[in-house]
């Protein structure tokens, strides 16, 4: 926001310093912001026209480096007595402790036989192991070991001032180990049920409480599996006990309860499209993606001119967003986990189109990110002409997840970190949007201007892209709508929808690939044989904030379901009458691949200018993850799944951002690419976040859960929950339409992402343009559906998720489901890691 925004920036900062708990949370790590120390009459730091447009970096949770004094001061008095007072935790300690001990309080519910005396403390010696099989013994011992370390952690942390956080970390660890153990037996139903029954009967109360805590945590991630595990005991206990237990397990507790209010999330509507690898190259896919985003941007422009559009992207999605911003007019770009480093070195060479960006951009990167380095980032920022800000999250990785050690040592949870990041985004957007209002009128011109640049790169474009581009060029929506009747209807309905309504609509379109979705039987089977890329396209969701519309929406949805067989429900969210900007933080997959965290948002409202926020991110978690799973079964399954935990907690901001009082923050949870764990985590998020939407979320979560036992797909295929089936239907349905897309999973992190992304775009192309995209993409269709019946959305968030794959699998991926499957071939050039210059 440069100089113009300077003053407000200062105010914002001052406000937050005084008010935000979360700011305090990280304040001691923030380095002194020299800009804010300027005298008020001093010239702004950026006053010079040639001054760099890079704003000072903001550090979140970055521990300042200690200066090592070289000499030993022998005369400095040593105080061996005074205990440094530990900072008071910022969350409500009492409340946190109370939720923390929930399981301990209610542990008795779990007992199948409540009348029997609790097992003695030396229960271990009394366990009668006769008749146990080797597998049973092994499994039991594993669980026992996990519980024992959890016990140690509990005891060791007892009385610590931030005990709830430490407990949370410990429980997550225990849950991970339990999950690992269960995954090692492929979640064999009999074995797992036996285990649960045995544990409940034999464990001493404290150990049982620890076990329940682990179950509670897992239940949030993999509800179906856990439910299946509990079935047998439930039948024994009877309804009352089962109900109590299920209540207890309903959602995992979080130490920050109360401080970070959990807003109701918008449940994402997921569409899963299978793409089969077939002859398209990565570059083309990329172009497709960019094309798709561009056309979406154009579409929104045409439907809602004068509304600011903000592109938000994760990882490669961020890159796509940036490239799009070069070509189309958008108000701002937010890059989460920007992949700066490529195989060819950092971005920002003279010919890098990103340097031409004029859109204000915010980079949020992890200090320990592999794809980015804070110092290289600074260099890059210097070269960008656009105003840009950088937020460095201390100790965070590519996905802005902080490490366990950091959590432990600093008493943080991922939800707190996510919240701080949101605050930063809100700050950034507040500045940009309020200033951007003035430019609204000029949008079209800008757009045109941007378009003029296109020809330069035209040579590189392939035909398909041209198609999409052509489609996107026309200003009128109608022109964009090609042949497909259904699609055109949808779209036109959008355009025709009345703009008069004051209601806010938030649209989150997340495209994520979920390989986990492959959970459908055939898919899984195929995968076993050859782990190829199955790209599922996960999908779009449009939350509408007005209650009245909810009903209508659902109906629309139903219609859609019939038409497209989409599995996911449309979330309706509570009414809020004000326009908002939503910031969705979708944190995705873990190392192993999976978990995605959705997020939340608190957003400032742009005064007067109804902002449209488009979040672009693309997740291509799935394929790799799955591969990873299949190849390295246990580890990946367990890891991926569990790791999601902290990240998955969604915190929504209740604080009204900034000066604009009208702001209301709401949470948009987009469940991102759920790969096996991903889906689970996403669902857990939803679960945790919203009670009211529980039924819906449980449905969605059902899907992911199945695939999660990666190692033993067969088992999962046995029973498909209904939603699953519907999903399967979708997948196959779409896959027919969509041809194959070459997928490269072989690529190291980045490479995979592009591979995943093509789905949406490819669809676009193969289906013959936008209209078809709309029809085949439930997300789009939904938008249109909703829009038709409803008011004009004031805010539209488009989220494309990008999933960095940390697993480098060498096995090629292709997807098996498509009928029109062609031999999949795809070697992705490693150079594809680098996003080619935007067309």
């Amino acid at each position, binding site marked *: 926001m440069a100089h113009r925004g300077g003053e407000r920036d200062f105010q914002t900062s001052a406000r937050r310093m005084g008010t935000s708990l979360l700011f305090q949370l990280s304040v001691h790590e923030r380095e002194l912001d020299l800009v804010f120390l300027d005298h008020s009459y001093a010239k702004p730091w950026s006053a010079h026209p040639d001054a760099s447009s890079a704003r000072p970096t903001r550090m979140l949770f970055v521990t300042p480096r200690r200066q*090592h004094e070289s000499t*030993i001061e*022998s005369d400095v*008095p*040593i*105080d*061996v*007595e*005074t*205990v*440094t007072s530990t900072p008071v935790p910022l969350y409500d300690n009492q409340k946190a402790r109370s939720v923390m001990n929930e399981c301990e309080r209610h542990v008795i519910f779990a007992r199948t036989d409540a009348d029997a005396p609790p097992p003695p*403390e*030396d229960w*271990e010696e009394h366990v009668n192991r006769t008749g146990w099989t080797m597998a049973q013994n092994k499994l039991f011992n594993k669980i026992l070991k996990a519980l*024992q*370390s959890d*016990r*140690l*952690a509990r*005891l*060791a*942390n*007892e*009385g*610590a001032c931030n005990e709830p956080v*430490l407990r949370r970390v*410990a429980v997550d*660890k225990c849950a991970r180990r339990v999950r690992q153990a269960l995954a090692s037996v492929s979640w064999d139903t009999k074995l797992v049920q036996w285990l649960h029954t045995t544990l409940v009967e034999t464990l*001493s109360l404290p150990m049982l409480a620890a076990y329940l805590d682990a179950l509670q945590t897992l239940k949030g991630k993999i509800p179906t599996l856990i439910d299946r595990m509990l079935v047998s005991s439930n039948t024994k206990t009877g309804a009352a006990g089962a109900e109590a237990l299920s209540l207890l397990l309903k959602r995992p507790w979080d130490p920050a309860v109360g401080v970070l209010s959990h807003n109701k999330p918008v449940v994402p509507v997921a569409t899963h499209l299978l793409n089969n690898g077939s002859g398209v190259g990565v570059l083309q896919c990329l172009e497709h993606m960019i094309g798709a985003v561009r056309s979406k941007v154009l579409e929104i422009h045409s439907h809602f001119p004068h509304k600011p559009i903000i592109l938000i992207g994760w990882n490669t999605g961020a890159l796509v967003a940036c490239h799009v911003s070069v070509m189309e007019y958008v108000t701002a770009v937010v890059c989460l986990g920007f992949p700066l480093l490529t195989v060819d070195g950092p971005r920002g060479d003279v010919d890098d189109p990103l340097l031409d960006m004029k859109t204000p951009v915010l980079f949020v990167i992890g200090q320990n990110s592999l794809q980015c380095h804070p110092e290289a980032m600074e260099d890059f920022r210097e070269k960008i002409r656009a105003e840009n800000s950088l937020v460095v999250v201390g100790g965070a990785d590519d996905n802005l997840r902080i490490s366990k050690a950091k959590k*432990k040592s600093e008493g943080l949870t991922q939800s707190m970190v996510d919240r701080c990041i949101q605050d930063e985004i809100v700050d950034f957007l507040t500045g940009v949007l309020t200033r951007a209002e003035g430019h609204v009128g000029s949008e079209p011109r800008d757009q045109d201007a941007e378009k003029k640049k296109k020809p330069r790169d035209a040579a590189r474009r392939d035909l398909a892209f041209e198609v999409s581009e052509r489609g996107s060029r026309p200003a009128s929506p109608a022109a964009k709508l090609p042949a497909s009747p259904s699609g055109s209807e949808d779209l036109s309905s959008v355009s025709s929808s009345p703009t008069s309504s004051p209601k806010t609509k938030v649209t989150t379109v997340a495209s994520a690939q979920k390989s986990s979705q492959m959970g459908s039987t055939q898919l899984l089977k195929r995968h076993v044989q050859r782990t190829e890329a199955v790209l599922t396209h996960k999908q779009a969701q449009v939350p509408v904030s007005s209650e009245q519309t909810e009903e209508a929406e659902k109906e629309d949805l139903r219609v859609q379901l019939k038409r497209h067989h989409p599995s996911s429900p449309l979330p309706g969210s509570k009414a809020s009458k004000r326009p908002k900007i939503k910031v969705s933080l979708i944190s995705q997959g873990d190392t192993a691949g999976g978990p995605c965290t959705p997020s939340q948002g608190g957003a400032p409202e742009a005064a007067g200018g109804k902002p449209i926020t488009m979040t672009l991110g693309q997740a291509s978690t799935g394929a790799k993850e799955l591969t990873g799973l299949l190849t390295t079964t246990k580890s990946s399954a367990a890891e991926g799944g569990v790791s999601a935990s902290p990240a998955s907690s969604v915190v929504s901001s209740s604080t009204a951002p900034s000066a604009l009082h009208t702001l209301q923050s709401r949470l948009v949870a987009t469940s991102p690419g759920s790969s096996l764990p991903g889906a689970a985590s996403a669902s857990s998020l939803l679960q945790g976040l919203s009670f009211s939407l529980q039924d819906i979320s449980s449905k969605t979560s059902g899907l992911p859960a199945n695939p999660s036992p990666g190692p033993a797909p067969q088992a999962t295929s046995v029973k498909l929950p209904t939603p699953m089936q519907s999903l399967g239907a979708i997948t196959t349905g779409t896959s027919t339409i969509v041809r194959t897309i070459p997928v490269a999973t072989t690529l190291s992190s980045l490479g995979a992402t592009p591979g995943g992304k093509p789905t949406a775009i490819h669809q676009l192309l193969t289906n013959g343009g936008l209209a078809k995209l709309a029809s085949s993409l439930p997300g789009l269709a939904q938008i249109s559906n909703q829009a038709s019946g409803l008011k004009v959305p004031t805010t539209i968030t488009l989220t494309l998720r990008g999933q960095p794959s940390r697993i480098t699998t060498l096995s090629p991926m292709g997807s098996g489901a498509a009928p029109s499957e062609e031999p999949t071939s795809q070697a992705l050039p490693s150079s594809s890691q680098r996003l080619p210059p935007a067309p």
Partner: protein
Amino acid sequence: MFFIFILLDRRAKILAAWFRTGHLASLQTWSFRVMTTKESGGAKAESALSSSANPSNCVSEKPNYALKFTLVGHTEAVSSVKFSPNGEWLASSSADKVIIIWGAYDGKNEKTLKGHNLEISDVAWSSDSGRLVSASDDKTLKIWDVRSGKCLKTLTGHSDYVFCCNFNPPSNLIISGSFDESMKIWEEKTGKCLKTLSAHSDPVSAVHFNCSGSLIVSGSYDGVCRIWDAASGQCLKTLVDDDNPPVSFVKFSPNGKYILIATLDNTLKLWDYSRGRCLKTYTGHKNEKYCIFASFSVTGGKWIVSGSEDNLVYIWNLQTKEIVQKLQGHTDVVISAACHPTENIIASAALGNDKTVKLWMSNY
């Protein structure tokens, strides 16, 4: 690489010889059955440097500890003395297989705890002063109820002599170090071993929790000190000096910021473990064979107190590192010295030629 050849009297913690080769072999037990001398008033406190300064003028210059009581009761070498956290009692463990609880202010023999089959090397109090844990050569630890004098639990699992033990601050965990080169963390309530930490390559000579209970420090004859995360049992840090003489004792400072390390080269060092460097070195005493306890004295001036193999108790100024007083009176190696939590009282205990515990008090 040095290997340590130990002729060890378990109770007395003798490290007799230190050879280049060989292994920990021939751990012989020396009998210390010596006649008991009734030590009455023969001992006198001797001020090490010049005359004892006037306390009113010279703040925290010199303590003036004087012998108040000699506690007789053990029939063999005493191995450890500890004051209870509430200041009421003093517990002493001995090679005669019993623990005696004494009144901390009057030296009265309150209770004798019997149960171990072999010599006891260490004893420790719980934070509420209600329980004791003892480490014995019979490879077990025992948890005692002080009030009733009964053994509540016997912790079995070590495969060799248990040499040192401690409670964590909430006293729900017990840490023990053993000649089997491992440390074990036990749940106090159930007596179950929750975790075994094995990273040392020689007997573990001392273990201690920091004041918040989040860290454990351990010292071993292998010459290194390790710092462990109590919650996970992971080793967080290893402190090694240039040469690595066997570590005979370690403990955290009362605030948990520093670590006092005793090594068998007549040296005590105060480390800032977070920065991994040595801040202070205390020398002048003799300590080459035994695992001698040392202590922080913070009730009056800030001192470091340690026993010595020249039968004296040494007191250093924590800041200046100078010896401010030597307490003379024991007739054998002073194996243990402990400081009272609130009063200026030092308890010291000596080996088999002496077998007594002495209480020293200072009006300063």
